[in-house]
């Protein structure tokens, strides 16, 4: 992220200064200049070409195309000709099931920021202690779900949480508790899927925190100890402030990743029961691809995706601005020291 930020900033500055090149040569000469510069760099253009082509085809075109499809009633076959104006957008915006999936998506985001990230920090703090025996084993175990196929994780948990013979319910009964219909009941399904997703993604967030913790010099803690600061005091006045710039980035990353919960939801519940775990991604998938829906509705699904995409882009932008502001403040503090 930091690298991205830096490059992004530097390039934006470059772009600005290039646009306002003060010693303005005559227009004609500038064009020749541009052309000769472009010719001089023809190899560089050739090298970036595959990337630019794939970016155009698989990222920029999809954004443009979604806007187009959203205005048509279209099943994906034949020409785009059934223009319906804003009907798709209105239909999505007035469908309670859509807003339900929208809300559930934000429950995932909420849990990632307020449950997964703090929990991962706790793990990182414990496992950052170099004197802890076997800490690498702990780290690897907690990390392994991150590299395991999410679809497989979802299916294995669906079995483990099975109401009748699932090991977790058998164990609950063995200690005298009632079995819980984890995935079959609307009141527990969402919490259960979110818990599994938290379990799955915790490892990567923990590695982020560990990386951040390792930037804090050990001498600071030693100095605090000499000054008589307790563990909690040094946590509050050393760890927290120094983690702050990283924390913002880590929260942004977990927030963005939380929108990729399709795999776990689709494999554990497919959005059920009764939409209790439906997220926007599964909602869109159902309208566009689900075989149960005999005629795919690509136009409607695109509109639903767009509506959500706009919200996410806006939220990400707001966060990006916050990140930059915090960064700048942090840089300012360092400069004044």
């Amino acid at each position: 992220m930091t690298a991205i930020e830096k490059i992004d900033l530097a390039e934006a500055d470059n772009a600005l200064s290039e646009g306002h090149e003060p010693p303005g040569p005559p227009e004609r000469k500038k064009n020749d200049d541009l052309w000769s510069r472009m010719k001089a760099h023809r190899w560089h253009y050739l090298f970036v070409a595959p990337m630019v082509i794939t970016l155009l085809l698989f990222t920029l075109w999809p954004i443009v195309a979604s806007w187009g499809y959203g205005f048509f009633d279209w099943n994906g076959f034949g020409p785009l000709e059934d223009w319906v104006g804003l009907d798709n957008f209105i239909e999505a915006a007035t469908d309670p099931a859509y807003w339900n999936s929208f809300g559930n998506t934000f429950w995932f985001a909420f849990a990632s920021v307020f449950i997964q990230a703090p929990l991962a920090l706790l793990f990182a703090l414990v496992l950052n202690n170099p004197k802890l025996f076997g800490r690498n084993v702990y780290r690897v175990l907690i990390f392994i779900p991150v590299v395991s196929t999410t679809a497989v994780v979802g299916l294995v948990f669906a079995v483990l949480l099975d109401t009748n013979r699932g090991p977790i319910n058998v164990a609950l009964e063995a200690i005298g508790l009632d079995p819980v219909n984890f995935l079959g009941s609307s009141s527990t399904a969402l919490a259960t899927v979110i818990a599994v997703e938290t379990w799955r993604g915790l490892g990567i967030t923990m590695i982020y925190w560990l990386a951040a913790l390792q930037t804090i010099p050990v001498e600071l803690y030693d100095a605090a100890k000499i000054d008589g600061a307790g563990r909690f005091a040094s946590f509050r006045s050393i760890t927290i402030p120094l983690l702050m710039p990283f924390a913002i980035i880590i929260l942004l990353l977990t927030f963005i990743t939380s929108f990729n919960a399709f795999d776990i939801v689709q494999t554990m519940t497919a959005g059920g029961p009764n939409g209790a775990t439906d997220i926007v991604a599964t909602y869109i998938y159902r309208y566009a691809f689900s075989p149960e829906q005999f005629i795919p509705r690509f136009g409607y699904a695109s509109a639903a995706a767009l509506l959500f995409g706009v919200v996410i882009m806006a939220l990400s932008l707001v966060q990006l601005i916050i990140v930059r502001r915090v960064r700048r403040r942090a840089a300012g503090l360092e400069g004044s020291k």
Partner: protein
Amino acid sequence: MTHLIMLPLVFLWFYPYAWSVVSSIRPQSETILGGANLIPQEFTTENFERAWNQAQFDAYTLNTVIVTISVVFLTIAISSLAGYALARGRMPGKSIILIALVGSMFLPKGFTIIPVYLLIDAMGLNNSLMAIILAEAGSAHVMPILLYMGFFATIPAEMEEAAKVDGAGYFRTFWSVMFPMAMPVTATVAIFSFIGAWNGFLTPLVFTLNAPELRTLGVGIYAFFGENTIDWGGLAAAAVIAVLPVIVVFLWLQKYFVDGIAGSIKG
């Protein structure tokens, strides 16, 4: 003391894996009647045979291997070339490319799948492994490109000039001087794209809806469980087949993986 808290927690992380491994090698009845028990009474290879031969996990594994290797090669080729040009060249339009690239990072994948599907369908590639490969390798190069850019930016310009003096052209300079030096970055990019492609689900799911024989492991297991809800032994065996290779690769190249993640935070 810490272990007293950590051990039960880690058990929570360990249990699903232990259950899968144990259930894959014991008879079906033991798994279904055994509850949470993890100690197998009898050993059998039946589950693996059923998954591998009858449920076509042999084909799914081959598909996954083909897709993954192709995606890894394409990703390395595309992003190392682009990273090199963007780090060394000062060509006009560079900033526009970079802004578009970084901006694309904020786009959740599920929301571009429809146009990508229709595009590949229009290319006539739907229902082929090529469709999955293109869709997977076509997006998400931001991190690899930034890693390569960061690396190539640190190499002194004299290296390039020396190569040029020796008569090497642009491509030769890149291929025989620059690219080999970037080996650590290539390893990081390789392991990330390996894991990403191996574990892919939505893309292969969408492109194999009408071509079950092209399923990758994740999609294959999903379909298998949909049809055989009670075959827990088969599911466990399939899960082991799907997850074991990626865990082995991860443990083997762990260092590059963790460094890559740490690098993305520290910058």
